[in-house]
């Protein structure tokens, strides 16, 4: 039956020579759309990273000319910080983790030839690209780019009088809105494809964790972003039509924005977390050669996390004057959500336990993900408890905490995914030694950037201050030493990224041929040729078992592909 399906399918365009534009820019192939998202996301990461470089230089060496930028003025500083945060979350983590990996993996891992709506898929990327261009354009308008922090709290964001960016703030908002539309369109594709287009025989519990997690993440995004879209419309009207939704002098309420923003903003953390933690699940079972421990529990946990994530948003508002009784409720729900997350980490450790572990580059990234994310999670407990958060709020402790969650998600998760699926995507192996050099050259400096920031935060260093020389308590020598340490570590880390690009280049040029299944993995994408052509599989697979049957006692081989009849 499967062969018959393919015969009707691969009739025409497959072997035709399509022009460059049709093949790479105007394609509806989910794999090409993955690359488009991936490349755009990495380009935006370079921009967002460059911003981090510019303002970290300012923090370490106040007032100095920063090479490639010049003197960072207070206005520059705010615009850089704001757009760094915005870009890293919306134009790096989202497109790379959800859109790129989701596009690549969902059809391949459920054993079909494309997304259910290929044209909507293409449209979603095009709108995303437009949103990125709109955002970048805000740097070139009168008054410059938006400078009111990525959370865009009014009144700072709602009137040009305070934000000093008459156009930048509206352009920023429109860019974010376009980005949301792109992801809503993309998400509908992901959810319906995974629901409806699974290979014959593939039951819900035969679907790999990463696909489940991307689908749950898309659902979370869809359910949480609506109120923020509503808020964005109101904010846009406050900026341009003279309404006062968030202006207390006109009957509005700035805290309303905080509710609308964080009702989205907290689930958003799980939207980007789930794909990353899913990538590391796939890698850990393969390179431990063991069945993923408690597969069903992991899925239920992820769903529980998703549901709970809607009940915690006001932990961002403990100092916004909410009722202390409310603060208790949100403290409890926040501490509760650490239970399913911690459970996931335990599941991974249990999977590793007793496995025959291969420590190659993808595995190193996957393990580092867990270790570093753990630090983020544990420090989050201090911030989830209203009593301690009132002290920590808006210090560098918070900043270090959320970078210990976002860096593993956005950077470690991405490198784990790229290095693991690279042989499938390109047909070539990457160099493992270069990969390891890049790994250590990223992980070690990363900790040297952010551990000092925990210390500075505990010493009272406030976020979003441009020059600490003006505050005698924060201008101590040892504090400057730590700031310099963090900044130098960043420079080292940036320098090591060159190794990654060298590895990419060398691999594409001279890499060893990968073959279909170099890691001896079970999931369906490894059945397809490397790289898969248009239509993915030579013969569409039928599924006989779950994705994690490694080292099965009755078999000689230590793996058992999902499509192999018993």
């Amino acid at each position, binding site marked *: 039956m499967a062969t018959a399906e393919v015969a009707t399918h691969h009739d025409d365009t497959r072997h035709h020579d399509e022009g460059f534009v049709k093949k790479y820019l105007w394609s509806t192939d989910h794999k090409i759309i993955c690359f488009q998202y991936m490349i755009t996301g990495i380009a935006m990461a370079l921009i967002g990273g460059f911003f981090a470089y510019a303002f970290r230089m300012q923090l370490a060496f106040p007032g100095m000319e920063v090479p490639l930028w010049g003197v960072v003025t207070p206005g520059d500083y705010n615009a850089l910080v704001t757009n760094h945060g915005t870009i890293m979350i919306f134009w790096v983590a989202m497109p790379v983790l959800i859109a790129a990996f989701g596009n690549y993996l969902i059809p391949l891992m459920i054993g079909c*030839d494309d997304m259910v*709506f*290929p044209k909507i898929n293409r449209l979603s990327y095009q709108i995303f690209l437009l949103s990125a261009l709109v955002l970048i354009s805000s740097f070139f308008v009168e008054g410059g780019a938006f400078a009111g922090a990525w959370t865009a709290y009014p009144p700072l964001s709602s009137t040009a009088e305070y934000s000093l960016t008459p156009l930048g703030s509206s352009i920023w908002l429109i860019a974010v809105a376009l980005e949301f539309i792109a992801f809503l369109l993309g998400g509908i594709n992901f959810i319906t494809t995974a*629901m*409806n287009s699974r290979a014959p025989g593939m039951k819900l519990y035969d679907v790999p964790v990463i696909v489940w997690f991307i689908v749950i993440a898309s659902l979370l995004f869809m359910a949480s972003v609506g*109120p923020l879209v509503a808020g964005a419309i109101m904010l846009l*009207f406050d900026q341009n039509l003279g309404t006062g939704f968030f202006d207390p002098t006109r009957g509005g*309420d700035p805290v*309303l924005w905080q509710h*609308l923003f964080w009702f989205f903003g907290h689930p958003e953390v799980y939207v980007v977390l789930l794909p990353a933690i899913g990538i590391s699940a796939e890698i850990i079972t393969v390179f431990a050669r063991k069945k993923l421990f408690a597969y069903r529990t992991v899925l239920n946990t992820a769903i529980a996390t998703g549901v709970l994530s809607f009940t915690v948003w006001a932990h961002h508002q403990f100092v916004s004057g909410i009722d202390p009784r409310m603060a208790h409720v949100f403290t409890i729900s926040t501490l509760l959500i650490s239970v399913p997350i911690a459970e996931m980490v335990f599941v991974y450790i249990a999977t590793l336990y007793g496995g025959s572990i291969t420590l190659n580059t993808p595995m190193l990234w996957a393990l580092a993900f867990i270790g570093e994310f753990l630090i983020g999670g544990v420090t989050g407990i201090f911030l989830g408890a209203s009593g301690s958060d009132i002290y920590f709020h808006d210090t560098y402790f918070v900043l270090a905490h959320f970078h210990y969650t976002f860096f593993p998600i956005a950077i470690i998760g991405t490198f784990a995914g790229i290095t693991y699926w690279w042989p499938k995507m390109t047909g070539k192996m990457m160099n493992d030694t270069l990969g390891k050099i890049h790994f250590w050259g990223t992980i070690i400096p990363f900790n040297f950037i952010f551990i000092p920031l925990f210390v500075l935060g505990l010493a009272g260093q406030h976020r979003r201050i441009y020059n600490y020389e003006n505050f005698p308590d924060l201008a101590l020598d040892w504090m400057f030493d730590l700031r310099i340490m963090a900044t130098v570590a960043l420079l080292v880390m940036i320098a090591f990224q060159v190794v990654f690009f060298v590895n990419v280049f060398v691999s594409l040029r001279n890499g060893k041929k990968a073959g279909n299944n170099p890691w001896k993995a079970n999931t369906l994408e490894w059945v397809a040729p490397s790289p898969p052509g248009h239509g993915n599989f030579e013969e569409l697979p039928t599924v006989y078992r779950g994705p994690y049957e490694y080292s099965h006692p009755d078999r000689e081989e230590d793996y058992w592909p999902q499509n192999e009849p018993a």
Partner: protein
Amino acid sequence: MRPIANTRSAAGIPTGRLAVWWVLASEIVIFGGILASYIMFRLSHGIWADYAANTNTMIGATNTFVLLTSSLAAVAAHAAAERGDGKLAARRLVYTILGGGIFLCIKSYEWYTEITHGFTISANGFWAFYYTAAGVHASHVIAGMILMAFVAKDAAKNAELHRVELVGIYWHFVDVVWIFLFPLLYIAK
């Protein structure tokens, strides 16, 4: 050429219908955000009831009637499409589009009179919500009309008849949103 992905149905529901429901789910939370904010304000600002007294319930009721009737035409179009009568389905979709057009004309007249009486979007919080909520709704009416025009064009040639149902589901949603807006903005005074 359509991918195989498009013809499979592991969940047993046609893919198009699934997708429309997901679109609506994401739309519900957008309107939910606006309406929840509005209700919170309404509850804590007693004076908004006085502002709301300036809306014209008669016009609102007429428009509700128009929109409901247009939904009826969409149901009839779906029935015709089920029977495979694309021509009739297309004609009935045109009636639905006309209903949307009448709705928008009445709405424009209503807004025109209100604005000339000084009730502009920046007059106060109530009017800000009034224009924002109804405006976002109206933009959905326009989007629905455009979509329906495309579907009707195909349906007239007996092509893509399943889309008649899908665009109908969307139109009913637009209708239901109005059913919420009408009491909240017009009746509660």
